[in-house]
């Protein structure tokens, strides 16, 4: 019985399952080949570099599930990154306020995207192309030159292992309490990403609004005829996307201890987020996939780039290899065309 459920899950989530498998193989062999593989230091470093793109991939997932695309996620991340570099320092209360303000500003920007898409009735891809420019402009207003400061303790605590976190804030006996031992080597960014997933994504997906997002992506007309709250779901999806992007921006600020309104970087993150979503088994046509898959997709993207450090590859060839791997990975989607029985199904 149990076996049966597992196989069924596998066939219902082929994309997610193969992404998970690919990630596991890549990550395992990476650690095997790394001279200091399977150590806390390597895990912390990898987790730090993956956190921001992981959040952005989650942010991109929601509009993609609707059958749209959000070209402003990188820009919103940049904007919140700059805001965080202004606000997240000072006394503990000020830091907390700064964190909340950063996340809220990202969510507010997402809300604006949602309102424009729903009430302006503009295609998401075009609307967010324009609002992305606005977000970059605002980021440049907030921080014309790279810089700023983020509270040092917070930066250290959140970008290292659990032991360092406890040690910095003197909780759990400075990290030596018995109950924290089993978790001591887990990188904090991993825990943050998992917490956000469990506390925000999972409840959202199980709510009526979340299910409506999937329904809209599958067949918007049918969702409307079934009386589902279409407008609310779309607005919620974009708002949540803005929130996830803000998580990414906030983390980036904490990690680099600065803000940088870099247009190129924003564009690169947006494009990578799309790639991560696709690698994670979410369909660009909408209605199929999940933010968890996108997390794995982001992981795959990053692990590929980690390989360049341990393999002796000419740095000049790295972008080429990255591109070829991406192209080959998405080309596996072509297997679908071989299974199609009615040729008309191709033209959906």
């Amino acid at each position, binding site marked *: 019985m149990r076996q049966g459920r597992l196989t069924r899950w596998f066939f219902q989530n082929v994309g997610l399952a193969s992404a998970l498998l690919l990630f596991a193989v890549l990550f395992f062999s990476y650690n095997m080949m790394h001279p200091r593989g399977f150590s806390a230091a390597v895990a912390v470093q990898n987790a730090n570099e993956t956190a921001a793109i992981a959040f952005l991939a989650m942010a991109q997932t929601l509009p993609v599930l609707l059958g749209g695309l959000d070209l402003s996620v990188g820009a919103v991340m940049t904007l919140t990154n700059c805001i965080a570099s202004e606000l997240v320092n000072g006394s503990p209360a000020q830091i907390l306020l700064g964190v909340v303000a950063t996340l809220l500003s990202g969510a507010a920007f997402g809300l604006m995207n949602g309102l424009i898409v729903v009430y302006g009735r503009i295609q998401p891809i075009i609307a967010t192309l324009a609002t992305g420019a606005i977000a970059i402009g605002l980021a440049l207003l907030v921080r014309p030159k790279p810089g700023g400061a983020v509270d040092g303790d917070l930066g250290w605590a959140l970008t290292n292992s659990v032991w360092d976190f406890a040690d910095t804030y003197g909780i759990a006996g400075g990290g030596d309490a018995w109950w924290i031992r089993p978790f001591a080597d887990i990188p904090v960014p991993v825990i943050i990403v998992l917490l956000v997933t469990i506390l925000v994504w999972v409840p959202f997906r199980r709510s009526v609004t979340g299910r409506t997002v999937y329904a809209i992506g599958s067949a918007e007309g049918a969702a409307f005829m079934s009386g589902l709250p279409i407008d609310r779901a779309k607005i919620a999806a974009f708002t949540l996307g803005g929130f996830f992007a803000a998580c990414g921006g906030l983390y980036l600020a904490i990690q680099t201890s600065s803000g940088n309104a870099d247009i190129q970087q924003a564009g690169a993150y947006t494009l990578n987020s799309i790639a991560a979503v696709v690698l994670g088994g979410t369909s*660009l046509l909408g209605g199929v996939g999940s933010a968890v898959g996108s997390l794995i997709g982001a992981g795959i993207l990053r692990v590929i780039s980690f390989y360049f450090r341990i393999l002796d590859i000419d740095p000049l060839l790295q972008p080429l290899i990255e591109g070829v791997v991406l192209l080959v990975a998405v080309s596996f989607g*072509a297997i679908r065309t071989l299974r199609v029985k009615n040729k008309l199904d191709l033209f959906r």
Partner: protein
Amino acid sequence: MRISVSNENKPILIASFFIVVILLAGTVYTLSTAGTAPLLSPKYLLQQLQTGSFLGICAAGMMMVILLGHIDLSIPWTLTAAAMTATAVGGEMALPTALAVGIAVGMLNGFGVAFLRIPSMIFTLGVDTVLRGLMVAQTGGFAPQDTATPLMLFLAKDRILGIPVALFVWAAVSVFVIVILTRTGFGRSIYATGSREGAAYLSGIRTRFVTMGAFVMSGLCASVAGVLLAGYSAKAYQGMGNAFLLPAIAAVVLGGTHILGGRGRYIGTLIGAILIVLLNSVLSIMQMPEAGRQIIYGTVIIAMLLVYGRNQRITS
């Protein structure tokens, strides 16, 4: 008297009206600060359009793809790759090589989208990354030392009868695209395929080759723009195409082409490109900092689309 305007022409009229508004606003600004009106002088306008021709040509190719309901994100590095190979090859063969690069990239894109059925958004993105990788590997990440050939310099910089040659190239590309879209079976097939690919297929249109053809056109246009831009700056450099992708999409959409395909006229794309070029030049005359530029740019696109780009509500 009530003038009726068809839905298809409304965006074009509004965009043209907005061009006039931009010109007037810019002129009022320059009159009040410097007492001159450079925006209304033909010489200045021609110069702006000369630099705008690169964007206009990219937008022309992008429009073919958007009419199909697809998108070509590989334009930046197609443009750069064409420019770099052209300057590297040099001599007589520079121009044909660049065009060949554009056609090859377009065929690859078309193959992935039409035959492998991979969403264009992600496939062209992958191709863009691969091209960037190829160029970085070839040039070592620096600007190549080669310079543009005399022909490229002529096409981009010279003037005939006081009119920049680049404008003639833009005009030639425009006429070419208009003829294709309105006077050939291929053009009709593009509209049909963009409206509903299944129906077009059942009507006997070989939709996959149509898609491939549109991507080849897009790659070709990007390579022409690359040749011109390399001629204009007298060399090719890393990332020279980055500034063209999003404005090209914006120009196509502001011109009234529907992003999901099947609807749109080329004249709209032309006006959309001119609109963006003039908006940029007025903002730089006003010495607007980058932050303000980006905000105004985004706001203008949203505002104009709110006026005429609204979709039907999906209710069934």
